[in-house]
Every structure is written in structure tokens, then in C-alpha cells.
């Protein structure tokens, strides 16, 4: 799931946000420099496998979407990162 570059970048960005915090869609889009459509597509795939939790709320009358890595997603990301390092012979 996260061996695709775009989704790896998304999970890497979300992993930099402390567990228990969530980030707004526009801010995440800004950190990734991705189009809204592209980001939405990949987020939906990550949400489908429960790697990303999506929270929809309102700021006044304006709808807002917040995203965070689920425990499963964070673990999958860390396992994937460790596997890459292992394959490349890095200790960490």
C-alpha cells in the first residue's frame, strides 16, 4: 500500500505529526505540493485499508477535513521504513 511514492510521502508527512494530533487537508496539501484531487485519491486508498483516519468537522459554517495516521498506519509506515533500511544495510 505505501510502496507507491505518493502514498509514502503522505504517510511520511503524517508520521511527522505527533500521535494523537491531526492535520487539516489544506495544510497537508501544502506540505506535499500535491493537487487536491491527487491527494484525495491517495488518501481514500489509505483510508480504505485503515491506515489513515479522516475526521470531518466544521469551522463555523465552513467544512474542514482533518487527517491522521491510525495505529495500524503508523505501524505499517515504521515497518516499511525499517524494511527499507534493512534491505539497504542500514542499522536504523
Amino acid at each position: 500500500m505505501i510502496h507507491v511514492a505518493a502514498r509514502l510521502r503522505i504517510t511520511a508527512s503524517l508520521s511527522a505529526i505527533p500521535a494523537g494530533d491531526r492535520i487539516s487537508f489544506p495544510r497537508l496539501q501544502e506540505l506535499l505540493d500535491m493537487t487536491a484531487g491527487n491527494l484525495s485519491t491517495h488518501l481514500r486508498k489509505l483510508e480504505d485499508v485503515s491506515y489513515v483516519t479522516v475526521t470531518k468537522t466544521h469551522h463555523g459554517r465552513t467544512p474542514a477535513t482533518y487527517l491522521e495516521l491510525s495505529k495500524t498506519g503508523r505501524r505499517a509506515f515504521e515497518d516499511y521504513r525499517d524494511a527499507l533500511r534493512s534491505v539497504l544495510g542500514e542499522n536504523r
Partner: protein
Amino acid sequence: MPEPTNRLDDNAPADPATMLAILTEQQRRVDRALLAPVPWLYFIWGVSWLIGYFLLWSTWDGGNPWFRVPVALAATTFAVLMIGSIVSSAVIGARINRGVRGISDFAGRVYGLSWSVCGFAFFALGAGLDFNGASSEILSVYFPSAFGLMCGTTYLGGAALWRNKGQLVVGVALLVVSSLAPFAGQPTNILVMSLAGGAVFGAGAVASAIGLARPARD
């Protein structure tokens, strides 16, 4: 600013080295985006301390040998610099955390509030000393060091909250400077706060800027 990407190769798996490089670069990019304003925070505080305390030192007999500054002008400038720094910190802090919500909200709010609450408490203690007849010389030893101790302690709190070694070093250095400054004698203690305090913040600005330029988190 680069255009948002919709590249086809975003969807294609790559070799492990490329993927690890993508991962590392993205995390570095997030770190930079979130922490980029930090050197400016230190810089603003450093300049405020350097100028503010230097002007206060320049109001005293036995202080600045080159020129004297009227007390009203020095005190007003000092207050403007400190309030400006606090407002800048609040604005920059909010910008760093823009778009992020959740469990850290409470910690951030308590940390932000601790600056004004602790500042008022230390000020009230100084006012109490004045009320009990402390001389202006004693108060000019108390207030600069009390403010420095408050800043140092609050930085230690920030270091603990965000596991930030830079804040830890700055906090400890401010505690050392503020607690030792009185031993330089009055009014030189104020010059020590200006130069050493300003240097601590300046070093914090340089170190955090270098840290941002350095690659990769764990």
C-alpha cells in the same frame, strides 16, 4: 513556490534506495515547514534583550560610560520590545501549529499561558519587594534576573513538552546567566543580562538554523 504535482511517477513503485530517499526528504521537508520560524523566534528575543537591557543599563550612574538614556525612554522601549517579542512569539507559534489539532492543543495552550501567568507572578513578587521598601538598586537586580529565570524555566518546560534539546540548552543557559548576573554587581548585572542573554538567544538562533539545514530525522 513549486506547482502542485500530479506526476505519473508518483504512482509507480521505485527501488528501495529511492523510496528511502523519498521518505527521508519528505520528513525533512515537513520538519523544515514546521520549524522554519524557530530561528526567528530566538533572533527576535535576542535583539530585544540586547537592546532592551542595554538601554536600562544606560540609565544608571556607573552604567554606560558613553551616553545616558532617560529612565522613561529606556523603560518604555524595554516594555515595547518585550511585549513585541511576546506577541511575535504567539503569532509565530500559532503559525507553526497552523492546521494541526488534537492531543497537543492542551499542552500548547498551557505552555502559552504559562508565559503570562509566570510573568505576572514574578512581577507581583517584585512589586511586593518594592512595597516592603526594597531600594531601586535591589529592584534593578531582582527584575532582570527574575525575568530571565522565568524565561529559562519556561524554556525547560517547552523542552520537556516537545523533547527539544535546543530549548533545553537555551533554558539552562538563561538560568545560569540570570542567577549569576547579580554577582557582577549593580548596575553591571543589567549589562550581563543584555550581552550574555542576547548571546544565548543568538546562539539558539544559529544552532536551530543549522539544525534545519541538516538532513534527516531518525
